[in-house]
């Protein structure tokens, strides 16, 4: 039985399923390391998936679609940033609003642009390089790049500093507000790119609500990976593997829904500290107020 379940194509399927999770989880941890709770990843990913298809539809060029996805994710993040950094709104509330907005706006625009309710017309998708579409390779490279930047550059040190103790960072001359904007926008751009991996990499259409909770699984992967790039990579692979495996288990009668619970249960157990406690950045979720330092 094992040989039906485990073969090389399962490994390929794991990487394909893990790619959007890796990219989004890395994006999420950049925002959270700077002190912004990012439960809006789901919405930014969905906007990215939608923008990718729209741009690819009108230009016929999937690469421009990818750029469109990155821009769309970035714009959503900028809204999130302005509301939570400048106007100091509760970051969880504004994140929830982003998710609701993305769910509504994508379907609304689908109706306006294509006159359809659930699925967009087919567009040109990204090419396949060797085994995978290009974003898969980018995801793997991104892990290494983020690790190096976060731990071996002054910029990375600043990001970590403003998430742990923003007022101390401010006193040594780091512009906390600007850094947080940059981190949130980068995070949104990456989530948007992950959306393009779904709609132009794996598929060639946009489907209503197609992210199907992947933004939240990415959040889970980020936490399970203890807010580190390599940890998030490992967790994403694990959750991607669970996703790839569920299809096959379904074939031999194991209900897929039960396998789908695994990432969430793992994350709760990890957070509760039963197996190696995950501790969030100290200043996570607090708006920075210069006057209060």
């Amino acid at each position, binding site marked *: 039985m094992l040989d039906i379940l485990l073969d090389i194509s399962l490994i390929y399927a794991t990487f394909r399923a893990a790619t959007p999770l890796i990219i989004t989880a890395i994006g999420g941890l950049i925002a959270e390391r700077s002190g912004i709770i990012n439960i809006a990843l789901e919405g930014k990913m969905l906007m990215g998936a939608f923008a990718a298809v729209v741009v690819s539809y009108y230009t016929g060029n999937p690469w421009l679609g990818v750029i469109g996805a990155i821009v769309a994710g970035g714009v959503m993040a900028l809204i999130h940033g302005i509301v939570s950094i400048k106007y100091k*709104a509760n970051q969880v509330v504004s994140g929830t609003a982003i998710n609701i907005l993305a769910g509504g706006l994508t379907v*609304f625009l689908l109706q306006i642009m294509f006159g359809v309710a659930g699925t967009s017309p087919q567009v040109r998708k990204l090419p396949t390089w060797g085994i995978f579409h290009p974003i898969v390779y980018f995801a793997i490279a991104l892990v290494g790049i983020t690790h190096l930047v976060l731990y071996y550059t002054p910029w990375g040190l600043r990001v970590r500093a403003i998430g742990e103790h923003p007022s101390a960072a401010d006193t040594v001359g780091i512009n906390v507000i600007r850094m947080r904007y940059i981190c949130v926008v980068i995070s949104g751009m990456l989530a948007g790119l992950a959306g393009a991996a779904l709609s132009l990499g794996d598929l060639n259409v946009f489907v209503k609500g197609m992210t199907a909770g992947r933004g939240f699984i990415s959040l889970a992967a980020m936490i399970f990976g203890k807010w580190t790039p390599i940890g998030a990579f490992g967790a994403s692979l694990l959750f991607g593997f669970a996703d790839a495996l569920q299809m096959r288990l379904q074939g031999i009668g194991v209900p897929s829904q039960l396998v789908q619970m695994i990432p969430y249960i793992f994350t709760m157990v990890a957070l509760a500290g039963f197996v190696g406690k995950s501790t969030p950045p100290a200043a996570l979720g607090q708006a920075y107020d210069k006057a209060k330092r």
Partner: protein
Amino acid sequence: MRKEDIYKNIKELLVPVGAIALGLLVGAIIILMIGGNPIEAYKALFIGAFGDKNKIANTLARSTPLIFSGLAVAFAFRCGLFNIGVEGQMFVGALAAAYVGANVTGLPKVIHLPLTVISAMLAGGLWAAVPGVLKAKRGVHEVINTIMMNFISYALIAFLVTDVLRAPGQTPRTVGILPSAQLARLSELVNWSNSRLNTGFLIGLAACAVIYYLLWKTTVGYEVRSVGLSPMAAEYGGINSNQKIILAMVISGALGGLAGAERILGFDRALILGFSPGFGFEGIAVALLGRNHPVGVLLGALLFGALSNGGAWMNFSTDVPVDLIVVLQAVIIFFVAADQIVRRLFPKKKKDWGVV
């Protein structure tokens, strides 16, 4: 009411009303951009929500789950907790209601109906107790755990409804609720309505009153609010804040369970997969808009119910897609959350009221 109290209440209304006004303005701009007529669209929206007796009944029916989910979010907020998991608590409550309401036989209505409602509340309460305990005992932020538990509940209910509890037929649904556990619908009481508005709405009104009483007229409510304002100070004043955190989550979850019970026992009369378009999340918006006060929650729920039902009519008669309503709701949440924007746009008439 003293003069200062009246001014204070007016000030409390400023942000929600301003946010709704700004939301409608943004909506109007979007309608103009897609070549529609905002006045026509909003007229259709209003007629769809309140055009006749039956439409009003349907609007109240759409608002009912939001009263419960809004109260659930608001109650947790009062204790300083963000219960983003009302959707999941509603799902397990719905599951309990669907099971007990359809499978426990031979009981008279006076026992079966309360039993079913209470099991839904218990299920929701227990589901919410998990993040409550983890917050109190292990210090884990309730937002992440309630999100995770939402997804666990989706998967659980999807599994149970498509596999274990499935009734014969095309769509995944459980077997129908027995008459002894049903909440009476308006359409069964009067001949002018086909609305599925049911006695759950009255339970919703009662819940608002109970939560108001609990929060402002009892010691427990005082303790819950103290923990919400400052857990440290509450602890210093002799309040066991961990205990109150767990209690607040359980009550919040029980309210979520009630939202599920109303849908299953009154509106749908079976657990149909996908029965909720996100009532739990709309509850967050409702609670914010209602300033976490039961009366505000009631008004917020009515507004959101009216927007949703009116939106369908707007779509039907003016070709503006119904999903505009979702966008509107998100914009309203933004403006309520970032209340500084609203306060800046609608400045105070006089600088100082003295005591406010």
